[in-house]
């Protein structure tokens, strides 16, 4: 991990290594950026998975990361809460600032980071425990001991994840008995129970049917009111439906970043246009 001099970086900040980047990575100064990614490079083994990525994640907005398989979009999102630490022989360069603090700095522990930046995975991954225990787990490791408080928060999280009405009579049953879509909403409830500020969704609907997908999308739009959201998706319609900003990745490079509307209506890069019109990917 390369430690960079933050101050110097900000002054010399430029996009020169991305071709014509000035036109294609459009940052929005009117929005409050919660996460600033600057000149991020990531490699594991011999493979350079991300090349010089710079973008902003705005507060209480949904930012979609799109691109074909293997373009580095999942890799990128997993760096935002340092789940990438578990990738063997990986190397990160550049910086990611969460509210101005470098997440790779020594006094920012990954455990603290992950409490602020929650994550929902591609495949629903509830623990093989009861529904209530699944959500209580995160609260317990964060030091909430009072039983009533835990139950109160569990119910609040389930309500916020639009799951409570369906399962209110079986919260003591195993989470593995839920349908895929319900399991995914449980994972969302589990994530929001610990009150993160940013939620990362890594293709949350990849293994779900269209009805469950619609519910999750509706939920994401609702959650936007409370949280800053980043969503990786290979479904462009989904990106168009739920996101405010879109980043298009291709082979480890950020090709274009702009408001979703502009990306879809009037992309400035030929490759973006080809991808969203379905010419490849």
């Amino acid at each position, binding site marked *: 991990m390369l430690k960079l001099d933050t101050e110097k970086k900000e002054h010399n900040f430029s996009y020169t290594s991305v071709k014509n980047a000035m036109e294609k990575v459009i940052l929005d100064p009117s929005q409050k950026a919660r996460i600033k990614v600057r000149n991020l490079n990531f490699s594991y083994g011999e493979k350079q998975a991300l090349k010089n990525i710079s973008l902003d994640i705005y507060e209480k907005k949904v930012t979609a990361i799109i691109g074909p398989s293997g373009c580095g979009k999942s890799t990128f999102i997993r760096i935002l*809460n340092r*789940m990438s630490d*578990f990738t*063997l022989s990986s190397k990160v360069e550049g910086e990611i600032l969460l509210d101005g603090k470098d997440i790779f700095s020594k006094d920012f522990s990954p*455990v*603290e980071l*992950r*409490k602020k930046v*929650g*994550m929902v*995975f591609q*495949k629903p*991954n*509830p*623990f*093989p*425990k009861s529904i209530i225990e699944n959500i209580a*787990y*995160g609260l317990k*490791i*964060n030091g909430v001991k009072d039983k009533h408080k835990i139950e109160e928060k569990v119910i609040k999280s389930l309500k916020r994840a639009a799951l409570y009405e369906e399962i209110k009579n079986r919260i003591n049953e195993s989470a*593995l008995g839920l349908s895929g879509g319900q399991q995914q909403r449980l*994972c969302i409830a*589990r*994530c929001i129970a*610990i009150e993160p500020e940013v939620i990362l969704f890594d293709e949350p609907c990849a293994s779900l049917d269209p009805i469950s997908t619609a519910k999750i999308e509706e939920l994401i739009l609702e959650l936007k009111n409370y949280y800053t959201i980043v969503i990786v998706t290979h479904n462009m319609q989904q990106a168009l439906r739920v996101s405010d900003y879109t980043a298009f990745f291709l082979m480890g490079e950020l090709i274009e970043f702009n408001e979703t509307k502009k990306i879809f209506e009037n992309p400035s890069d030929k490759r973006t246009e080809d991808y969203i019109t379905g010419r490849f990917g």
Partner: protein
Amino acid sequence: MSIKSENFREKAIEYTLFILSLSAIIFLAGIIFTLIKEAIPAFKEIGFFKMLLSKDWYPTYDPPDFGILPLMAGTMVVTVIALLISIPLGLACAIYISELAGKREKVFLKPFIELLSSIPSVVYGFWGIVFLAPAIQKYFDIPSGYCAITSGIVLGIMSAPIIASLSEDSLNYVPKSFKEAAFALGSNKFETLMNVTIPAAASGIITSIILGTGRIIGETMVVLMLSGGAAIMPTSALEPVRPMTSAIAAEMGEAAFKTLHYYSLFAIALILFAITFVLNMLAEKISKKYRIKLGSSR
């Protein structure tokens, strides 16, 4: 080759393999049959409960006593001591190798642990005689180093690799997604291990402990060499004991053919077999349940 002779060859191979695979069952049935047949006279003559519950084992006295309670107690004491050593040792190894060790350490450690379980038990026994028994005698200041604790320690060291190896497999089997979920919620390594990984692997770990227990109970050479051989009710771990296996091994050669002593040794063997059989069934049952439980969430 004609179709007919081709068919015949196929069938011949099929039947040969079928009969060979049956042989395992035939041998097992034969062993059980012999055990039961030779044990029945003892139970008839002495009485099943009298044999099981009486505290005196003097098979060569006149009149002889055939109470196997002290032998069972000997097995128990030795097993408990062995488990007290092998469970923490085996689990610690398993957790370290599967969760904490780096790639290189893993490649290095796992074969060594598996090698440890392939050392012949007589070698362990020999090590116990030469090294451990004198040390125990000296440390506790007791008349003989050949006692329950000595053979228990050696058995514990001996069975730890089984527990380590099988537990490590079951820890590895825990889906990565569980651990990721825990880490993403802000758990540190220790919390993830205690709250997610170990509970998810619990059935596999329990199975490994049960199989390890079976190994300890059935082990003969080490207890024969190290436990002292006194068939009396043990009152402490520092006393010599005579576990069931060592009683059979030591006395079968001198018991006259078809005498009550001979039959009662078969009775002990039958009880031993029943214990290990139940343990194996239990392990099988738990591990099956475990497979299904994780299977649905993968």
